[in-house]
């Protein structure tokens, strides 16, 4: 390594004498080196090497100067050479080994070995330091540390009060949030009163901030979004807050909403400048209607208001036409009687039951919504075949289950395996078909 250490050393001014002048070290602009300085060009390997203190006698490298000095003592140098050289070391500047880099030019050399190392790393090196929270990679450890301190500590808040931990979610929300429309409408109204710069973006920039704070101040305090909402649904994107803010009526709030609707109408007029969006009149009407319907029919549950929650849930449930609801006797009644007993039976048990039931009634199915029993099976063998397949499968399952877990628990559609529950003798071959009886079911833990 010593041989490669300094591949070439030359100075910018060839006729420089060996005692360079100044005691004062002034800091040049980066990349504009002191013309008197000695330019060192290190190879990438050397540059990235950690041992930059080199013994001039044997060439061994050390990370710290103290260690180098300790080592030099071992060479038994004559006295005068033992000291460090008295002359001021010549100012050294370093060039970047990367040919395409601007700092490869000696005129743009960097003055600090640490500096050139960092530069080389950052620009041309492998980024091996990765931030935990985001995907950013860094080649220089100190850069990485600096970033880690600030990463992820940002939170994004929309004017409507909703908080976001991710920028993309925030941006998407903000684009469609009525808070933005409101702000734009207000700004547009203001600018219309002044000089008519309906299409002027500049007004938005200047007055946007003002409008926002005004808007929030105008809200009565009890309508301010509830930040402390416990979100049962994952990360902090509580849509409920928006409905609180815009929604369910106090007088002043309705007034605000009505006012905002008119503003949106006027904004609609401005927007027709760009392409063929919509006729301004129809747009205003449309948005009014939609605002109204949205305000008055918002059905989203508010986690801070449990009463509302249950009622909206019920609505949704009723709305979703479960196919089970209308045939109570055929299917287990999972809305009314809360415990769903059948689903905890094993598939095989259910199959058995289905097969047994087949014989009872042959009354054709009618619309009084009651099922008088399954039709008699004209091909009893088909269901039996399926059952047998399952039994065999179960026996494998049971077997391997006990081998691995040493317990009788087997979960086949939620129930005990083909042979019955825990503690009972298992029939691995599936030969003895157990009839459905309470004891075998209860045996399953």
């Amino acid at each position, binding site marked *: 390594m010593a041989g490669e250490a300094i591949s070439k050393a030359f100075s910018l001014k060839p006729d420089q004498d060996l005692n360079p002048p100044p005691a004062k070290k002034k800091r040049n602009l980066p990349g504009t080196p002191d013309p008197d300085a000695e330019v060192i060009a290190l190879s990438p390997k050397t540059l990235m090497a950690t041992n930059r203190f080199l013994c001039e006698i044997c060439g061994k490298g050390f990370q710290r100067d103290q260690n180098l000095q300790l080592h030099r003592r071992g060479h038994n140098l004559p006295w005068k050479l033992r000291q460090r050289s008295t002359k001021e070391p010549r100012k050294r500047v370093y060039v970047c080994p990367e040919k395409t880099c601007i700092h490869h030019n000696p005129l743009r050399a960097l003055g600090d070995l640490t500096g050139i190392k960092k530069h080389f790393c950052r620009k041309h090196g492998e980024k091996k330091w990765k931030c935990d929270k985001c995907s950013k990679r860094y080649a220089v450890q100190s850069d990485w540390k600096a970033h880690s301190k600030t990463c992820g500590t940002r939170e994004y808040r929309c004017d409507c009060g909703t908080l976001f931990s991710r920028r993309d979610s925030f*941006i998407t929300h903000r684009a469609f949030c009525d808070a933005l*429309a409101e702000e734009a409408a207000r700004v547009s109204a203001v600018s219309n009163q002044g000089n008519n710069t309906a299409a002027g973006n500049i007004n938005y920039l200047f007055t946007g901030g003002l409008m926002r704070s005004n808007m929030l101040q105008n809200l009565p305090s009890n309508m301010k979004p509830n930040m402390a909402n416990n979100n049962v649904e994952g990360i902090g994107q509580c849509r409920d807050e928006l409905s609180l803010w815009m929604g369910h009526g106090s007088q002043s709030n309705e007034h605000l909403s009505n006012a905002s609707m008119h503003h949106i109408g006027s904004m609609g007029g401005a927007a027709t400048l760009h392409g063929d969006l919509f006729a301004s009149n129809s747009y205003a009407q449309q948005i009014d209607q939609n605002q109204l319907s949205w305000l008055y029919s918002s059905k989203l549950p508010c986690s801070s208001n449990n009463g509302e929650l249950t009622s909206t849930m019920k609505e949704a449930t009723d709305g979703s036409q479960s196919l089970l609801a209308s045939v109570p006797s055929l299917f*287990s009644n999972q809305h009314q009687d809360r415990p769903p007993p*059948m689903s905890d039976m094993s598939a095989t048990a259910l199959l058995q039951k289905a097969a047994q039931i087949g014989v009872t009634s042959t009354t054709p199915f009618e619309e009084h919504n009651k099922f008088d029993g399954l039709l008699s099976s004209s091909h009893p063998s088909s269901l039996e075949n399926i059952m047998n397949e399952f039994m065999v499968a179960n026996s494998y399952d049971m077997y391997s289950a006990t081998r691995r877990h040493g317990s009788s628990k087997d*979960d086949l559609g939620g129930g005990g395996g083909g042979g019955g529950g825990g503690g009972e003798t298992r029939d691995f071959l599936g030969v003895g078909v157990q009839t459905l009886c309470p004891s075998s079911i209860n045996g399953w833990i």
Partner: protein
Amino acid sequence: MIQFTHSSAILLPPPPPSFHHNDLLNPNHQLLHRASRPWTASAAKFHGSCFTAAGCMEELLVHCADAIEANDDTLAQQLLWVLNNLAPHDGDCNQRLTAAFLRALIVRASKIGSFDLLTPTFASSTSLHLHRFSAVDLASFIDLTPWHRFGYTAANAAIVDAVEGFQIVHIVDLSTTHCMQIPTLIDMLANRPEGPPFIRLTVATTTSTISPPPMLDLSYQELGAKLVNFARSRNVVMEFTTIPSSPTDAFVSLIEQLRVQRLVSEGEALIVNCQMMLHYIPDETAGVITRSMFLKSVRSLEPNLVIVVDEDADFTADDVLVRLRSAFNYLWIAYDAIDAFLPRESERRRWYEAGIGWRIENVIAHEGLQRVERVESKGRWAQRMRGAGFRAVEFGEEAVGEVKTLVDEHARGWGVRKGDQEELVLTWKGHHVVFASAWVPS
């Protein structure tokens, strides 16, 4: 008359929760052969019910479908009964998945003439309640999982790269999620060092009666107005245009408009951004060549970039049994992933699951052009794109980084990997979910 619910109602404790079956299934057994799928240890956390249950449900569903196809009413009804008891729609995610398929089978059975007995009972109760979203609601909804935003993020990065230097950018957004990708794209373009371009945004508003969820509760005009307003707030001038056009006819009217417009668009970058929409264009399995035709038409517009983001699965088989297995072995992911994020009683989860239920019904119960959910694998899409005269471009390092950041912020099961041909793939517990690919004319 036998009443099953009351007389034999036996209260049983729920099955033991964290019960893992790793190699429970004997791969030699002909019935339960799910072992062929890649299987990670974390998949064992399939909440509540174990792996065997899923295999069991799948087999019962297949047997049931088979009975329906064979017009074996009795067997079909018996199996429907069993399945219904095994899989309440509000059970664990496995049960919910099965319940959705069960529902779809019932719809299918009622459409096949011979099932007169079933029809009166079931037909009345099979309507799914699809929620209509406001724009803000939809914005929050698509962030429940990275299912959609994965594609948005990858696409936006590729788009911004592709339009560097262009002062006018025309984005054709063909997406099932109604422009939810656009705000972040506007934001990125607004932050360009060279300043934002003039943006033309064109969207196809479907004229078809069969429209997949999610549904909007506002018109596209209003949606567009909001977007234009947002762009303005970022100092970006944007023009929003809607063209009535639908995937059923391969967006013929849209292509025509674009063709005309392209003739006079000097110096304008054209981006065609397809997010989950292309699989609604009928393909050869529906007896038409519209899918490849569409891609060739797009190619003829000389676009600067075409983004193809879709689901990596195959729902195109003619045989309903094969389709059932494919769909079951793919859509379990949707149920499992939401389970990791929303509680069981959550309303949003209901909306989400209703949306998947719609798709399952479409795959299983419908045929011909009514069956619009013709998802095909990323390999097939790549073949089509190449056949149409495109070549794949890779996503830059930054794009990959952003996608990974996004995915890291979601539940632990989500991951990203690079496909074998420049595409990026979103994975859930190791299984492929969505792929994102970028194409330029070759």
